[in-house]
Structure formats: C-alpha cells, structure tokens
C-alpha cells in the first residue's frame, strides 16, 4: 500500500502526472504534498495575441468569476499614445465612456507625474509608448466586480514600459467604471478610443472563489 493508500500500490505521483484511483483523503493528502494536479483558483480563461488589431475578450466567464487578473506582454503601438481599456455591458454592441482613474507615473530620467481624470473615454493603464522597437509595455491589472450588475467595476494596475523617449518608466494606479452593470466584454487598445495596436499578448485569468 502506498503512502496515500490509493490503488495501485506505490505509483509515482507528481503534479501534472497522477495515476490511480483517489479517495477524498488521498486527494487531500496529495494536495498538501503538492503532488495532486489541481489547476487551482487562478484559472486561465484565454490568451490572445493580436497584430494590427484591438484585443477583445468577449467572454469574461462572469458566471464563474467575479474578479479577474489580466497580464500584459509586450504591448506595442504604431504611433505614440497611451494604453488602456474600455468595457461593454451590451455584448459588444458598444464600449462605454466615462472612466475615472488616478495613476502615478515615473521614469528613469527622474520625471514623476500624476495622471488622472474623472471623465475619460478609456481607463488609462500607462503611456506613452510608440513605434520604436524597444518601446513596449508589460504589466498586470486586477479587475473587480465585472460580474456584478449591482456594483461599479474597479481595477488596480501596475505597468513597466519603455516610453517614446526610450526611457524606462513605470505607471501604477486604479481605474473605475462608475456604472452599475454586468460587464460582458473588455477591449484593450491604443489611446482613449482603444484603437488597433501594432502587437500585443494579453491573458485573462479568473480568480476562483467559493
């Protein structure tokens, strides 16, 4: 009989490679030993890589997840602008305006600035990036309450990028869509219109709760 008591006896167990028939106690013990394949509470919903396009996530799976994590990899623009998002509560027929945000920006040349608005057409995440080959943005944001029709939708963000003057920079802050609505879709893109980006890879994760 193996340490965990399952059948067959003494199979080699590791995360991503489990063999045998498991009782609840086996699963509990294996999970505690980090040997049970459980994709956990940070679940990848979708990764999208776009070229000369906006990046739309058309299913946030809000029936399963009220909160989300979004990661940004090598966001690149064809012209100098800021990076941000817009949400849709009508299944993508339109994307809303009227966002609030407050971000702190700073760069390696010693320039630190406040970026803020109580009514912008997009929720700003960082800026400015441009068409230079090394001018890319990377980072993440948490999105809260997208699935709750009775609450506003919030996000917090942290970005690192090389700006349009070839200077490494950061921008972190928070954004608010001040409307009670269930969010069906989210669009990431260039400028306050969220237009096409030269290239980008963006991943959407659901944060599971019970």
């Amino acid at each position: 009989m193996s340490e965990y008591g399952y059948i067959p006896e003494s199979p080699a167990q590791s995360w991503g490679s489990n063999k045998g028939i498991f009782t609840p106690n086996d699963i509990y013990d294996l999970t505690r030993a980090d040997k049970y394949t459980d994709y956990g509470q940070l679940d990848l919903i979708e990764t999208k890589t776009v070229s000369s396009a906006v990046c739309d996530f058309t299913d946030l799976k809000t029936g399963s997840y009220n909160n989300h994590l979004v990661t940004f990899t090598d966001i690149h623009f064809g012209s100098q602008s800021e990076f941000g998002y817009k949400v849709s509560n009508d299944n993508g027929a339109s994307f809303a305006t009227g966002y609030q945000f407050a971000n702190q920006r700073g760069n390696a040349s010693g320039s630190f600035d406040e970026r803020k608005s109580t009514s912008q057409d997009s929720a700003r995440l960082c800026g400015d990036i441009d068409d230079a080959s090394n001018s890319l943005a990377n980072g993440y944001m948490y999105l809260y309450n997208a699935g709750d029709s009775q609450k506003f939708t919030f996000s917090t963000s942290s970005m690192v990028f090389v700006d349009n003057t070839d200077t490494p920079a950061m921008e972190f802050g928070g954004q608010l869509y001040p409307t009670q609505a269930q969010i069906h879709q989210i669009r990431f893109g260039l400028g306050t219109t969220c237009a096409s980006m030269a290239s980008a890879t963006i991943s959407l994760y659901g944060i599971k709760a019970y």
Partner: protein
Amino acid sequence: MSTKLHFITSSSATSVSDLSITGCFTAEYDNYKVLLDDIEFSDGDMYFRFMNASGTVTSASYDDAVLLQRSYGGFADNYHTGQTYLGSIGYDNNQQGGGATEINVYNPYSSSLYTFASWSNTGMSSIGTPVRKGIGVLKVAESHTGINFVGGATISNVNARVYGVK
C-alpha cells in the same frame, strides 16, 4: 508545481464596526493575497490589523506609507509610525460596491519576522475615485494567524477572500 493561488477562506459582513478572519494564516504558506471586492461606507475609510493567539494586535506597532492618488485633485503622501492599524486601504462615500483592494501579506505566521504588507486600492467618492498604493509593517516578531478589518465608521458592507500564494 506551478505558481498559483490557493483559496483559503472568505468572509463578509454588513453594518459592523470590524470584521475578523481568524485562522487564515498558517505554516502552510509564507505569503498570502487578500482580495476585497466590497468596501462600503456611508462615509469612511477601511484599515486593517493582524491577529495573534490572543486576538487583534492593537499595540502602537504599525508603520505605513501610502500614496493617495486622487482622480479629482492632487496626490498626497500619507505616512505614519507607531499607529494601531495599517491604512487607509480604501475610502467610500458612495457605495455601489465602494471599492476594491488587493493586499499582499508576507511572513504573517513567522514567529521570528515582522509581518509585511502591500496594497493597491481603487476607492469611491462622489467626486471621483481615490486610489491608494501602500506598504506597511507590523513591527512585532510574533506569529499572526488572522486579519482584522476595522472601519473609520460603521462598515456598511465588506467582503474579503484570502488565498495562499504557492
């Protein structure tokens, strides 16, 4: 094993002065992520403290530094030493969810290290969102097993989830 979050527990409350989540920090994880997606007040700020075997730690041993980023005005540096709590981690006077905060907690269970935290918040006020980025330390080297959220006013609604970071 891949890096991931392990859901530990959640708790919510309505019309309370504070909310305690006990037994959420154990020897199983060094670091934790706490997500609050409901922080509602008629008009108030949220703060937090840690808990040990005797209950909530209320000694004047909390130091913090918070950048308050107002969408409607100038930013402000808020910092304290020798407080009895950490924060603010969120302000609301408009409800509708009130705000959302991500807190990272480091080494809470260790009996030989200080307990560290960092947080990011998007709050709500009737004139625009106040955003906060903060760090704090409970400068007591003892084991902490829980977290206590305390309002500067009666908390209308609060919901918090605790994850272990693997």
